[in-house]
Every structure is written in C-alpha cells, then in structure tokens.
C-alpha cells in the first residue's frame, strides 16, 4: 500500500518535471546559444544535404501558396515517405481543379496529372537512370561553387521555428534564394527567389503544415473515380542533339542533365536541360519548323522575343530555318546568351 503511494507520488513528480522542461523548451528558454552553436557547427554541404533529404523523407501535409508575377496559387500538399518510395499528392485550391500524384524512388519518378473536366490523366514518367549518370541532381559541392551559403536569423514560418539560409549567386547568370528550413526536420517551409536587385520575384511558402505525422495512404488517392478516363503518356525519349548536328553549350555554371526528343505543340523538337542544382534551363530546338511562313494570327513567337514572368525568362530565336527557344528560372541575360550560343554544325 505504502509502496503504491510512493510510486504514485514519484510518477506525478516525474510528470511535473517533464512538463516543466517541456514548457521551457517550448518557450525557447533552453535553446538560445547552444542551438546557435549547433547551427554554426553544421557545414554548408551538410545544410544542403539536410534540406534535400528532408524533401524526400519527411512526412508532411499542408497548404502551400505560390506567388510570382502577380499570380497567386494555393495548393494542398500531402507527402509520405515509406522508407523506399516517396508519395506526394498536390491538389489545386484555386483555378481549375487539378491533382498531381507523384511517386518517387531512387530509380524512378512518375507524376500522374488528373484533369477532371477532360476526364484525362497524363502520366509523366521520368526514368532517373536515363538522365546522365550521377547528374540527376547536382552535388552540394557543385552548388556551393555557384552559390555562397550564409546563415540568417531564426524566424517562424507557419508557426514553426526555421533557420534562414541565403544562397547568394556568385555570378549574374542566376538568381539568389532565401530558404527557411524547419530546424527539427530540415524541411523547407518557405523559399524566395531574388533578382539582381534583391527583389523577391517568386515565393513558395507553407501557410500551415503538419510535419512528421503518420499519413494514411488513403490521403494520397485522387478525389475522383477515374473510371473511363483517357490516359495519355507524356512522350519523350532520350536523344543526342550533337548527332543531329546541334551544338548547345551549357550556360556558365550549369551542367546538362538530359537530352530528349519529343513533340511540342504538334512539331518535332529536341530538348536539352541544364541545371546548377537550384535553377533549370531548357533549350528547345525545332528543326526546319520555320520552312513555312506562320499562318496569319498564329501564336508563334516571332523573331527575337524575350519575355520574363516572375522568375521565368523565355527567349526565342531563329537559327537557319529552325526555331530555338530557351526557357528557365534565370535572369533574361542568361536565356538570351544560351540561345545565342546554339549552333548548327550539320550532320556528318
């Protein structure tokens, strides 16, 4: 009897102590300098690894707001990692109803796009092995060759304490970034793209999020029954642009990640994709597509056309009778320079 009473008291004492500690942690009274020390102790390479890993491996569900070029779009995101595959479901919350369901492992990456008003599913299959070996994502070291990492303050995003990281571009060929990373899990909760005047031209941010919770797989299924829907596969295959006589040098500080042949708006085209680990640039070549004059009122971009919208720059240019189009989340000077460097050498 006495033993039970003693045990009960001990338990409640332990409980009280636990709560007191918990309160101190929650109010940040215990964090302070030791956490700052921890943050500094982490190397730049490790920070990038942490953020990248968390994107794949952390379970989360929340609402993301994307803003760029005067547009704002919200989506609901659910992401689950089961130890081998990551599963992701994105539901648009405004505009036309869309869902994107992605399944990703080390070897494969598939996105299913659901278009309910057309009763259509488009499947994009990215065979990771088909991209140049080892180049599907740039190494942290490569990224740090092109960007300087700086630690900022600890700030709250969606109610969660985040470490702010700044990635400052080392040249003018790319934009800079601010990243807010959950200190506990490494998940990126907010990202801003900054132009050369340090203006924010793009922002992706969670407005609410739950991290690390167990997620039921039923939450990863689309909202609609897709019986009778048509299924399209996004169609592209590996290609070698140089074999077709095209020389497409990589922009400074970018590396080629893929070369494919595909169709764009009804024409045959080739696409070379370059990445610096953060930004991507695509070069499209439509050979001999300008043999016939464009129909009056058609929407072909004419002559040399440079456009930007938010973080995206696009530029179109004739090379002979072929159309070269460059698109990327880079400053306009970069897409213009890339387009200018494309040459047709002729086939052997």
């Amino acid at each position, binding site marked *: 009897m006495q033993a039970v009473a003693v045990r009960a008291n001990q338990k409640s004492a332990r409980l009280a102590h636990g709560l007191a*500690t*918990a309160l101190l*942690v*929650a109010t940040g009274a215990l964090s302070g300098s030791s*956490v700052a020390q921890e*943050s500094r102790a*982490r190397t730049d390479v490790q920070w990038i690894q*942490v953020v990248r*890993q*968390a994107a794949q491996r952390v379970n989360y569900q929340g609402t993301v*707001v994307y803003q760029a*070029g*005067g547009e*704002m*779009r919200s989506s609901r*995101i659910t992401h689950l990692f089961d130890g081998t595959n990551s599963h992701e479901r*994105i539901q648009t919350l*405004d505009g036309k109803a869309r869902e*994107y369901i992605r399944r990703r492992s080390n070897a494969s990456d598939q*996105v299913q*796009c659901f278009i309910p008003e057309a009763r259509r599913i*488009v499947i*994009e299959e*990215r065979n990771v092995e088909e991209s140049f070996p080892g180049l*599907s*994502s740039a190494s942290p070291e490569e990224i740090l060759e092109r960007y300087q990492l700086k630690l900022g303050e600890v700030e709250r995003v969606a*109610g969660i304490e985040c*470490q702010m990281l700044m*990635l400052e571009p080392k040249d003018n060929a790319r934009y800079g970034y*601010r990243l*807010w*990373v*959950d200190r*506990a*899990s*490494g998940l990126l909760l907010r990202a801003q793209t900054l*132009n050369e005047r340090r*203006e*924010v*031209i793009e*922002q*992706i941010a969670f*407005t*609410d*999020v739950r991290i690390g919770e167990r997620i039921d797989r039923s939450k990863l299924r689309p909202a609609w029954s897709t019986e009778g829907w048509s299924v399209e596969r996004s169609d592209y295959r590996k290609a070698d642009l140089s074999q077709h006589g095209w020389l497409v040098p990589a922009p400074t500080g970018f590396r080629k990640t*893929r070369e494919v042949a595909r169709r*764009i*708006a009804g024409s045959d085209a080739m696409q070379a*994709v370059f*990445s610096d*680990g953060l930004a*991507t640039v*695509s070069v499209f070549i439509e050979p001999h597509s300008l043999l016939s004059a464009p129909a009056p009122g058609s929407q*072909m*971009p004419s002559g040399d*056309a440079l*456009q*930007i*919208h938010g973080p995206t720059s*696009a530029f179109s240019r004739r090379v002979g009778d072929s159309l070269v189009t460059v698109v990327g989340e880079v400053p306009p000077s970069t897409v213009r320079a890339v387009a200018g460097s494309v040459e047709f050498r002729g086939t052997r």
Partner: protein
Amino acid sequence: MEQTASNQGLNNRASATLTMERISVLLDGEMDRTEAAAAIAALCADPALRRHWHELHRAGDALRSQEVAAGDAEDFCRRVAAAIAAEPTVLAPRAAKPVSGLRRYWAPGLAVAASAAAVALIAVPLMPTPETVSIAKNSIPSQVATVDVAAQKPLSTIAAARGLNPSFSPYLAAHRELIGNSVVPRATVYLRSSEER
C-alpha cells in the same frame, strides 16, 4: 563488493571512462542526461565497447527467451550495420525534444489568420490587371501590406501585368516536366498554370 574471477575477466576491455557496469546502467536508462551523452559518445567511438552493449543485451534476451537469443543475432546486427553503412548518411538539423501536447504546428483557428497574414505580406501589383482583380476578389484581404516579413523590398512587379506569351505554354510545360530535383522545391512543377495541362 566481492570481485569474482569471472567479473574481472569480463572487464578486460572496459575503457577508463566507461565501465561495463555503466553500460549496464545506460541500457536500463538509469543515468542522467549528461553522463548518458558522454557514454553514448564513447560507445559510438569504440567497437569494443559496443561489443559489451551487445553482450549485456544478449544476456537479458536469453533470460526472456532462449530461442530468440539462440538465433544468430550477432550476424543479423552485423548485416544490418553493413546495410546502414551503405546508405547515404541521414542528417537532420536537430531532433525535436518530446513535448507532447504543447507543440502545435497548426491550430485551426489560427490557420486563416496565418494565411491571410502571409498573403498580406506580399505586394500585389500596383497596376490593375484582370488577373489582379480576380486574385483580389478571391483571396486577398482588402488591406494589402507591401513589405515582406524577411525582405525589406516588396515583391517585384516586373512584367507582372503581362503573362508570358501563351505560345510559350507548351515549352513551359515541357521544361517543368524535366526540371528534376532541385534544392528549391520548385513545387511550381506542379503549381502550373492550368492552361499548360
């Protein structure tokens, strides 16, 4: 305390700072946080100490179930260790302290305020355009702050009023499809304009 010959035998490889008895205490979780951290560090650094950890666990396992203890646990643990060694190293900035009940990432009542606040922090283009009007109608409160919380400069309004020429849409779609995995989520890959797909 009597020291039997067998006790001395087993203590042969215990380090100066971490005795086998302390490993036994750590196993039971009956150690204060600071000493535990040091003990764990010592264990992680010394394979011979880990051997003691294994043997002491095995003793308890054997007591509970001779079948399970007889199974080739050592071999299994070594195979798992080899499999883990081959894995890319897991890194997280800092583990959360267990704070049950006090940690809330999302309070339903606050969500609306939070998203409204986030929206209000981003500048809306000053030039009225059809897009701007529809956005304002749907989700932005009428008072719009123009200062982002972390940046001192408002969101750029470059070319805000013009979208990209719609003829770029198929290129954009094809570009976003092959963006691959960047540190920046570019969940924009999915947050596409619905005209693209």
